[in-house]
């Protein structure tokens, strides 16, 4: 099937070439980091996790978001999602591979990565995260490939594959839950030490993942003649709205707990993220514009969707803009704010701001570009198969 990725029009190749440029830059930046040291990043002793881990966290969410297609289709037999379920599975594959790349970019001794398997340590949440991520990746590879192959041959997928489909549902929840547990079980990290971290991660994942899928569907409608169907898109935007609202609700709860309890440790990170934190005569606020952009984009997207649904407006461009707004909002919230905010105040109550370096951003963009290229190729295969079958 993979040969389908090797045939495409010039736009397809231009797009892949464009991405390759970023991948090449990222690879060079990574080699520099590999040979010179992690000191090339903006991370430091006080703020020792940065852009890589935050992208990892966000992308685990994107991978888990595919659940919002798989679940209705396979459990509730919601036929409308029939054409796009495979997109959810393939997006999960690409996102998980990006996650693994970000982890490799983040660790100081990448060649020793296998120590996690050679010395399995069940008390470490990172060990479990690896287990569920690799598990979910394998499940999606199996399900996606087997189901697509069956579709190509125009036969029913073998029964056994459904077992893997059903197992993949709790796995999708588990990858993001365990990823949240990396953060929410650490004493002395007040912003993360919140039982609502995991539900909040899930809520934002269930908005961000589908939002990305809708954007891809709309793009493919224009460039690849692939129509997901109005009803499917409509249903997805409803799901995105609810999930984004629940995420916003959870964030508000964090504010309530912080301000009503008035416990400084519970307020610091939120103060730093949204208003600027005053400490020792200096105001630390480098993330404030990003967080407010996130708030406005999130509510902007929600209002747009709400208005379109009430006024029964149907416009691909508006739907795409709404999804993009919500996706960026959630990326700012989780892909930047959550990790950096939680680390700004260190355990000794010293404040450090984080500024990623050019080299670090280069690697990050390279991995994102690689992910987009992977999605492009996987989606191309999936669509070509579907179109071939329908053409018969």
């Amino acid at each position, binding site marked *: 099937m993979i040969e389908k990725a090797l045939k495409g029009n010039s736009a397809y190749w231009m797009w892949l070439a464009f991405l390759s440029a970023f991948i090449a830059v990222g690879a060079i930046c990574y080699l520099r980091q590999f040979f010179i040291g992690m000191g090339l990043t903006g991370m430091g002793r006080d703020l020792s996790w940065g852009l890589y881990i935050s992208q990892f966290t966000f992308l685990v969410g994107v991978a888990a978001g595919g659940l919002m297609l798989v679940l209705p289709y396979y459990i509730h037999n919601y036929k409308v999602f029939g054409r796009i379920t495979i997109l959810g599975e393939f997006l999960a594959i690409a996102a998980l591979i990006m996650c693994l790349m970000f982890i490799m970019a983040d660790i100081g001794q990448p060649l020793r990565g296998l120590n996690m398997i050679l010395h399995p340590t069940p008390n470490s949440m990172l060990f479990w995260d690896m287990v569920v991520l690799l598990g979910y990746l394998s499940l999606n590879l199996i399900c996606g490939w087997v189901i697509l192959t069956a579709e190509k041959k125009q036969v029913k997928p073998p029964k056994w594959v459904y077992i893997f489909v059903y197992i993949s549902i709790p796995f999708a929840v588990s990858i993001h839950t365990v990823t949240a547990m990396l953060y929410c079980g650490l004493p002395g990290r007040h912003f993360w030490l919140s039982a609502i971290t995991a539900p909040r991660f899930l809520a934002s994942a269930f908005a961000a993942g589908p939002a990305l899928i809708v954007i891809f569907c709309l793009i493919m409608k224009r460039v690849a003649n692939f129509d997901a169907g109005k009803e499917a898109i409509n249903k997805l935007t409803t799901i995105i709205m609810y999930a984004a609202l629940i995420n916003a609700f959870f964030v508000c709860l964090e504010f309530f707990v912080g301000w009503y309890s008035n416990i400084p440790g519970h307020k610091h990170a939120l103060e730093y993220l949204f208003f600027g934190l005053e400490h020792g005569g200096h105001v630390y606020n480098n993330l404030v514009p990003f967080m407010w952009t996130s708030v406005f984009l999130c509510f902007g997207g929600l209002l747009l969707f709400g208005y379109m649904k009430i006024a029964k407006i149907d416009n691909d461009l508006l739907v795409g803009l709404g999804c993009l707004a919500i996706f960026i909002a959630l990326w700012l919230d989780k892909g930047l704010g959550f990790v950096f905010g939680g680390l700004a105040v*260190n355990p000794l109550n010293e404040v450090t701001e984080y500024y990623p370096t050019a080299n670090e951003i280069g690697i990050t963009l390279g991995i994102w570009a690689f992910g987009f290229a992977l999605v492009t190729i996987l989606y191309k295969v999936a669509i070509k198969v579907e179109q071939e079958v329908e053409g018969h």
Partner: protein
Amino acid sequence: MDNQRRKFLKMAGATALAGISAPAVVKLTASPALASSAPAGHGAATQDSHAQPAAHGEEAPKGVRLGLLIDMRKLYGKPELMDKAIAACNKVHNIPHYDDRKNEIKWIWKTPFENAFVDQSVYHSSKETKENDFLVLCNHCDEPPCVRVCPTKATFRDEKNGIVAMDYHRCIGCRFCMMGCPYGARSFNWFDPRDNIKEYNPKFPTRMRGVVEKCNFCGERLAEGLEPACLEAIKETGAIVFGDINDPNSEISQVLAKEHTIQRNSSLGTKPSVFYIV
């Protein structure tokens, strides 16, 4: 060592011997001053604490648990003494020097009270508290979160003596332990540390780029019968006391029994083994 044997040693009143690989314990706990206290009483006391584990709502101590006590009263107004202790640690452990906070590596350092003891009030604190820095280092927690989170067991608690140690050859540099440690006790080698070691000590291994490091309670020195370098550097002041806090006859236990001490962030349940008299 298996529990049976440990128990036997305890009963025999020879707890100190349990730290076989750490003769310093023997030395510290069997110093002449302490040897005068009746050995029988020692055995009895250990047995007692076995018999009534719930007496103070604390668990019965098991085996050797090395601890360190800093009597800040002896260091107030004398930052140069603290610098001396810090320099001693840096020297024996080949700790690289970086000028910037970002890449800094430190095992023991000075910091104001409000940063060292974040859960203590500094409202109307005394002049001494306000004006002095405090020595901080890894607490060799009895319930160490850094060990709990490490995915490779590269950081682990040595059951023989309670030291939270590191295996630099196994560490993958994920820095999860730095997230877990609520004391900021750990440093990461962002660059090759070997380029920045001022005075190389061939007796202690240098680290490689990409791994985490921290105070090791001078495990390598204890094995040679020496005391921790920071203690030794300012020994004349008696400001630092080191020994087995599970042995009621050790010097540190006796100071602990007499003086009111505090620990850093004790509310987090990490059970630090470093104590302060302030």
